[in-house]
């Protein structure tokens, strides 16, 4: 009887030791899995964060570079065009001091006036390129149509724009950003795609405003755009991306099913007018 009791106790002790060790092992394993998994997740998150920071850095650099280029262009316009014009006007006016004959004086004053008029026109052009007056005074629809008419008028490319639902306009800041994006896209199409036509369509659905540009030249697709975003090249596209981010919108580069036209679609959520 005592032997049987001892035997049972021995079996129970074995179960106890094995059970305890098993439970301990499972607990340690579970904790290890949690720790390693969490470390892995943190490493992954850090990597993503780093990539995002690098991308932001690249966009910021592109934005600064774009600003610098814009400044250089304005400086060049002023230096190369306005500078010589004003210097010539000064020469004509100087001539008045030397030649006292009224006929010569009148002639030089007239020439100086002509040159000053040209300078005014030039400065106006520079100012318009910085902030289109049509956009400021009449809004995005008028500005885009004006831009497309000018392109059309140049005879290089067939350009047209149609706004379907612009009853509820975007706010001024959004309109300016959209205009810049359209300008950049159109410039790129003219420069690189050898397209025969560009057509812009605007429409709205709910709180989202859509702009779609069609063209029949060589275009890019979404994957090319995404790739360029991570490259140091493609300054204009980076600027488009930065502006889209500010707008909290989306941009899609696609090709139609017949592979005849490329299309760029911009989605902009309406913000309240300030």
């Amino acid at each position, binding site marked *: 009887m005592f032997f049987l009791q001892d035997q049972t106790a021995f079996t129970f002790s074995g179960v*106890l030791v094995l059970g305890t060790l098993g439970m301990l092992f499972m607990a340690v394993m579970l904790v290890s899995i949690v720790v390693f998994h969490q470390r892995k997740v943190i490493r992954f998150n850090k990597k993503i964060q780093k990539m995002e920071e690098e991308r932001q850095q690249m966009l910021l650099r592109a934005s600064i570079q774009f600003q610098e280029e814009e400044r250089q262009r304005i400086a060049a316009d002023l230096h190369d065009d306005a500078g010589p014009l004003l210097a010539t006007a000064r020469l004509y006016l100087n001539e008045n001091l030397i030649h006292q004959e009224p006929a010569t004086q009148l002639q030089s004053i007239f020439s100086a006036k002509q040159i000053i008029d040209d300078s005014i026109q030039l400065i106006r052009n520079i100012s318009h390129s910085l902030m289109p007056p049509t956009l400021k005074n009449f809004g995005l629809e008028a500005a885009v149509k004006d831009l497309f008419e000018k392109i059309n008028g140049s005879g290089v490319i067939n350009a047209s724009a149609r706004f379907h639902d612009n009853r509820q306009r975007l706010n001024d800041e959004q309109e300016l950003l959209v205009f810049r994006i359209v300008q950049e896209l159109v410039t790129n199409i003219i420069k690189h795609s050898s397209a025969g036509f560009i057509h812009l369509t605007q429409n709205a659905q709910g709180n989202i405003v859509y702009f779609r540009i069609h063209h029949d030249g060589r275009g890019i697709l979404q994957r090319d755009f995404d790739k360029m975003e991570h490259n140091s090249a493609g300054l204009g596209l980076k600027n488009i991306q930065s502006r889209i981010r500010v707008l909290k919108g989306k941009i899609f580069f696609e090709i139609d099913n017949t592979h005849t036209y490329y299309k760029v679609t911009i989605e902009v959520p309406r913000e309240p007018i300030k």
Partner: protein
Amino acid sequence: MFFLLFKRKSKQKPLRVILFYVLYCIVNEGVSFYLQSLRSQTFITLLNLFTIVEYTFFCYFIYLILPKGSIKKTVPFLWIGFILFAFIDYFFFSITHEFDSIASGIEAIIVLILCMAYLFSQVKGNNSLVVYSTFNFWAVIAFFIYFSGTFFLYLMTDKMRVSVSFQKMYFVINISFNILKNLLLCVAMAMKLNGVVKEQKKVIPDLGDDLFIYQKN
């Protein structure tokens, strides 16, 4: 105890709960030892009471540290359910009023599930801080390891208490896991200490307020 005394100033609730839990464990051990030496039957009641109080401390602690969600909401119900069960078991089913193996076993299962729920929430959550650098994690690990290790022991105590070899084993396993639990709680306290030191470094340095007084004049 050194860590506990050192950290007594801290206002964080989970830390306080653990502090009182450890203090209760110490007092309970002392009283149990004294009653055992007197061979008093109150010792068993104290042991049963310990299960309930320990479970209460754990539930409150886990309730404080669990992120908002359905599991957190179930903790109070689990607490009430277990307390009711423990009392019913003690007064109606446990006729001999010996060691409460069933209540201890259920307590261990609930604690292990809640610990796993906490660990799972840490894995799931988007936390940039490594989980093992926090006080909560080490405190949960202390409970997790302790209850995993003593689960079979407490479950078999009621049936095997007369066996001499089991009594020896009970002593060894119980003491070992108690020590391990306290060591892990010490590690938890150390984590908290580091956190406080880091927080103190962030305090804005003295800016020399006399400069502003001079300007006012």
